[in-house]
């Protein structure tokens, strides 16, 4: 069984696709980091409609 040949378009756009992939990875890391910092900071208050927030 052989894999389908890579389309020429994928080769041409490799740099662009890698860049977008890295940016999306960085965005996930930033959102995760911000969430962590926000919920571990002293002033954090859970919304009142969350169970156990009282």
């Amino acid at each position, binding site marked *: 069984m052989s894999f389908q040949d890579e*389309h020429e*378009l994928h080769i041409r756009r490799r740099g*662009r696709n*890698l*860049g977008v992939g890295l940016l999306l990875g960085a965005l996930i890391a930033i959102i995760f980091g*911000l969430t962590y*910092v926000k919920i571990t*900071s002293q002033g954090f208050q859970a919304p009142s409609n969350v169970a156990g927030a009282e």
Partner: protein
Amino acid sequence: MTDASINNASATEHEAQFGDYFALLKPRVMTLVVFTAFVGLLAAPVAVHPFVGFCAVLFIAVGGGASGALNMWWDADIDAVMKRTARRPIPAGKVTPQEALALGVALSGFSVVLLGLATNWVAAGLLAFTIFFYVVIYTMWLKRWTPQNIVIGGAAGAFPPMIGWAAATGGISVKSVLMFCLTFMWTPPHFWALALFMRGDYDAAKVPMLTVTHGRKSTRAHILVYTLLLAVLAISISFTGAGGPIYLIVSVVLNALFIKGAFAIWRRDETQAEADDFRAERRFFKLSLLYLFLHFGAILAEAGFDRFGLQLTFGGLL
């Protein structure tokens, strides 16, 4: 994706690479935005978590970059005829105007919302206003209409330290307004010096720069007057809460050099300038970059001393 779009894409001469899209964000202008926003953030009297601070400066930079992409979308016709900008991604045929518009709009929304979530909505609102001001007020309206384009439009480039300050404090203060004023007053002489040595560019593009509407002699006089006004403002900041002895020394030295450069430009005529390929004008332009970076560097140094309990201000009149 349809076969048709693949075929269309392969028909284009140049496939846009990641760097071409990045170039739409005007990375060199972004360094100024990043640095001044960073100073605004650190000069604020409220400590910010380092990661939140990093994100705030990043989102401000992305917002600045987004407005750069929108500027390139709107001004593609001007950029194509100006030597300085002809190699930008749109006139060079690397990126289509529609792609620049999409990238600019998407990054504008993204940066404003994320800055609001990461810090506060005052900072996000200021960033949104900055993007609006640069794209609509400056690019779409002032730039092609009045020789005062960069005087008023310079406000867009002056907002980042205020946004940085607002990201830390959630508000606006005299200090942050002073940082705004410093960049605002610095912009006209900086750009007019550029307009003097990029001679034919603005004429060819029919942009009503001062050199085109009022002539080059008048532009030289304007540079001198604005430089003198800037010097008064810049040195006065030494005696406010944003300044101090370090800032004063830096400011006096830089303003002396800047005024000397402005006088040299004012005393020259076009024959002299052409003879040495606009040496004085080019030097003044380079000095203007150093001028702004060192002034903000001094504000940062003063803030650093304050944070470690060493008050170096002259009593802080403001």
